[in-house]
């Protein structure tokens, strides 16, 4: 057990006064002393200066060492932390959690003297030592430790009960833990779990057993993309349809959305996200808590199974991942005091609010921002079909700006044709070309507007495949590139290339050239040497992007981590 360096603790900045109770007790520290047996004893004055950063380290460290022996009460303001460690709740049994919370709250009410507390602590220490000897690996959080914050604000107990639960069960978080700097704590903990790697055979086997959608591995898999799912297509849909009545655990609304994802009826990331959230709304509406279960836990499990079903239909986009995180945070925040109907209705309204604020209103705001960049005589270039770019162009047209639009399109989806149709119908002057012709057309273009599936915190733009090429050519011809993206699609992940995480589409589409009867690659699967790769996304380096238009304003790609940091937690805290 290696304690965090003491110097760290000493030099750590003092948190906000509001969050630091005046009388920080010594006991709390001595507790952590007992946990970190090697850590030096400190005078109370030093402990006063202690703040979250020390405890953060210890939290992480505790997590790593995986010793969940102590019941620790979380002080106020730990919502985000609760959220962060939410995942670990699942592993612990509910009984212990409840038991521990009850015991936790009990001693808080009685005012203990300093001597009493010290005596109590001595007893704890002894108990802990014996537990250690007796290999106490299970959470034995029965020691009611009173936190100073709770002591000072006993009224809040009821509200905090929920906050207490997860932490109590998770691991020994020292009481020093204040609610200060929640985003940082969150970020540290919220590092996205490593994605499923499909070259890991044992995990793939496990996943297969669970899966609802029957998937057969594609025959000619691309070696470079073994870590991504490469499945045969075509028979999934019929399989799913035929076994509809066997999947009683999947809600019909989710089922419907899943089928739409599978067939590609819903393509845009915004529409996908909205469809998913609305399906979840229906799930929640039709949900009733089974006896002897808590709504928060059971509903989370229900949502989880729906999510994994949707993920099998089509890998979830990053924006959807963000939305699911938000939803789970909401569910986790439901307290026991709320009745089921209350909880359900509040969840549904919160989802509505999320859709409205994060997508609908954000889009409006982005359109407002972006339109200011369109002037008379401009030639705008856009790639594929982005709903946001379409709105911007149409709005600029409504404002009677005189401009032309160049639509660049590429196989296999040829989404640009839909956009072309919509714009031509509105009477806009359009030029249509394919992605190879982009170098030719770029001379006359004055601005490039692109949509994005996600923006990572190193400023790279994750978007439909081909976007990077367009941005590159625009960069080479010194044409500004504006990426339009709602901030709910931002993600703290970083990525350097398009190989590590991506989505593979149906390879058969590549073999079929539209408008041709005889394709020379019709029997491609019969030859082992031939693979077809239908890449879904690519990653545009940040230096190709001039600015990113979000609802918060127009920012350079270097400011994406700032948005993620400052606003990223917002949806969690709604």
């Amino acid at each position, binding site marked *: 057990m290696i304690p965090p360096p003491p110097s760290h603790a000493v030099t750590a900045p003092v948190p906000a006064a509001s969050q630091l109770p005046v009388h920080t007790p010594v006991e709390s520290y001595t507790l952590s002393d007992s946990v970190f047996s090697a850590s030096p004893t400190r005078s109370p004055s030093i402990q006063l200066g202690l703040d979250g950063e020390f405890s953060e380290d210890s939290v992480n460290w505790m997590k790593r060492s995986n010793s969940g022996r102590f019941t620790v009460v979380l002080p106020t303001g730990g919502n985000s932390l609760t959220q962060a460690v939410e995942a670990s709740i699942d592993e612990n049994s509910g009984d212990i959690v409840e038991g521990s919370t009850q015991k936790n709250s009990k001693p808080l009410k009685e005012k203990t003297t300093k001597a009493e507390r010290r005596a109590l602590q001595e007893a704890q220490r002894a108990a802990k030592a014996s537990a250690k000897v007796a290999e106490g690996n299970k959470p034995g959080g029965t020691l009611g430790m009173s936190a100073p914050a709770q002591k000072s604000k006993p009224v809040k107990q009821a509200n905090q009960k929920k906050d207490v639960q997860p932490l109590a069960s998770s691991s020994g978080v020292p009481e020093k833990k204040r609610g200060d700097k929640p985003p940082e704590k969150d970020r540290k903990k919220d590092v996205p779990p490593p994605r499923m790697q499909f070259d890991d055979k044992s995990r793939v086997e496990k996943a297969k057993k669970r899966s609802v959608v029957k998937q057969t591995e594609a025959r000619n898999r691309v070696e470079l993309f073994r870590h991504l799912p490469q499945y045969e297509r075509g028979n999934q849909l019929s399989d799913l349809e035929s076994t509809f009545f066997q999947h009683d655990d999947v809600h019909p609304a989710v089922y419907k959305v899943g089928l739409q994802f599978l067939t590609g009826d819903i393509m845009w990331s915004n529409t996908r996200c909205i469809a998913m959230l609305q399906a979840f709304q229906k799930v929640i509406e039709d949900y009733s808590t089974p006896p002897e279960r808590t709504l928060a836990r059971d509903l989370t499990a229900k949502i989880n199974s729906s999510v994994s079903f949707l993920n099998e239909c089509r890998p979830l986009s990053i924006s959807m991942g963000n939305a699911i995180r938000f939803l789970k945070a909401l569910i986790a925040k439901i307290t026991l005091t709320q009745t089921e109907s209350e909880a359900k209705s509040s969840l549904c309204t919160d989802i509505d609010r999320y859709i409205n604020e994060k997508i609908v209103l954000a889009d409006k705001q982005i359109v407002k921002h972006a339109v200011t960049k369109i002037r008379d005589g401009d030639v705008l270039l856009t790639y594929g079909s982005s709903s946001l770019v379409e709105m911007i162009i149409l709005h600029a047209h409504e404002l009677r700006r005189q401009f032309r639009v160049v639509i660049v399109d590429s196989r*296999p989806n040829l989404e640009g044709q839909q956009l072309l149709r919509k714009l031509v119908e509105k009477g806009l*002057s359009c030029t*249509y070309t394919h*992605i190879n012709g982009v170098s030719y057309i770029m001379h006359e273009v004055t601005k490039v507007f692109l949509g994005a599936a996600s923006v990572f915190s190193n400023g790279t733009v994750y978007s439909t495949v081909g976007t990077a*090429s367009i941005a590159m050519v625009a960069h080479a011809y010194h044409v500004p590139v504006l990426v339009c993206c709602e901030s709910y699609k931002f993600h703290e992940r970083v990525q350097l290339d398009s190989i590590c995480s991506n989505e593979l589409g149906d390879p058969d589409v*590549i073999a079929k050239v539209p408008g041709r009867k005889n394709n020379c690659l019709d029997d491609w699967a019969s030859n082992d040497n*031939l693979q077809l790769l239908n890449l879904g996304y690519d990653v545009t380096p940040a230096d190709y992007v001039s600015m990113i238009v979000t609802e918060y304003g127009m920012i350079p790609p270097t400011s994406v981590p700032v948005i993620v940091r400052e606003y990223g937690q917002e949806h969690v805290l709604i």
Partner: protein
Amino acid sequence: MEFRRGSNDDGLDRRFWGRSQALWSAAKREGRYPSLPNDLLYLSHWFSSVKLTQNSVIMPDTHTLVNDFLNKLKKRKIEGSKATAKLTAELLRSVISQQRLPNTNQAGALIHAIKAIGEQLTTANPVEVAVGNIVRRVLHIIREEDVSLTTASIGGLSLQGLSDDEEDNPLVSAAAAAAAARTTLRPPSLQTLLEDMTPHSAATALHHSSSSAGDSEDKTKSTDKNSRSRKLKHNVIETVNELIQDIATCHEQIAEQAVEHIHHNEVILTLGSSGTVIEFLCAAKEKKRSFRVFVAEGAPRYQGHTLAKELVARGLQTTVITDSAVFAMISRVNMVIVGAHAVMANGGVIAPVGLNMVALAAQRHAVPFVVLAGIHKLCPLYPHNPEVLLNELKSPSELLDFGELSDCMDFGIGTGSPLLHVVNPAFDYVPPKLVSLFITDTGGHNPSYMYRLIADYYSADDLVLQQRPTS
């Protein structure tokens, strides 16, 4: 059906596509496929539309041959620079063989005739640079053969002179003959210019000796003439045959170098299809190199599919990707190998559409961008605005079906200007800074060296094929 024509001066800036779009919309209204009228193929700012001075010396059957070829060029019946180059060379060969030559200045007459045809051919399809290249090559061959014949005769004369007057320094005259041969055989370069300066005395000595031997030359001239005329023609045709042979075997010549460039376990990316690339990759495969190939399909013609099929048949690991995935995949690629349509004197490449994008991506990831080009693709001209002027717009139907968007297209009729433009360029210009290496039949070369390589094959007098109407 009407086509907007830009005035000549702003024609340079005008995009070619305006025309094809007008055509497209007009054709839409009439509901038929536009059959690429010759009217469309104006494009010749390069070779301005000077009316050809009718050459009466061409015999009628060559006339029909030429016209036939012209029609094919105009209708784009001949595709691919190799096929075009071969056909052009064969046409010129038959023209030369049937050309009646005057007694004096035979080379001049021949050059004049070839230039006249060359002008016609290049204006018929100015984008197919290979035609102009071959015409210039043939002109260069004629000049060379002429010079070598004259130097041979001069050499003979100087030898005669040597025997005539013994006091003439044999060393000087031999050097003079050699210098003369060098100056005439070599294309203009700094070196030859400098060499011209130094052996000036030698040149005058040569002058002296030849003039001194003038009377003896006069005697032989008349008897020599007929044989010389036949010899010139014969020599020229022989060299043209060699040229045709060269064109035919350029693929093998290039493919021979494949082993030097492709190593084990390499990942190679190519776009579209090119005969040279197929041969190159297969040659490496035959030498037991195992490597993988990414083939970008090359919209809108998707020739990459054919290439992939061909490569797979030869047992190469091939992955077909969409053009849009090039940027994503290039980070895992060791080398980009592509074919070219033409190589300009500055080292820039006129390449199938999409390659500029690939070259930029390759540069970004520091992946070598290798261009395979047969000697017939080397063009001695420096390009100006090649993206537009050396480009051609293909039928929009390759991108959009004619029936597609017909409901929307009706909007355009009232306003006059069509709402929808469909741009389908055939070529991309890849600037020399994006090219890492050229592999030609003569070996690998830097882009910056191309001008010199080109200077070996063409004479400076032929760079402009068009003849002034006054002359």
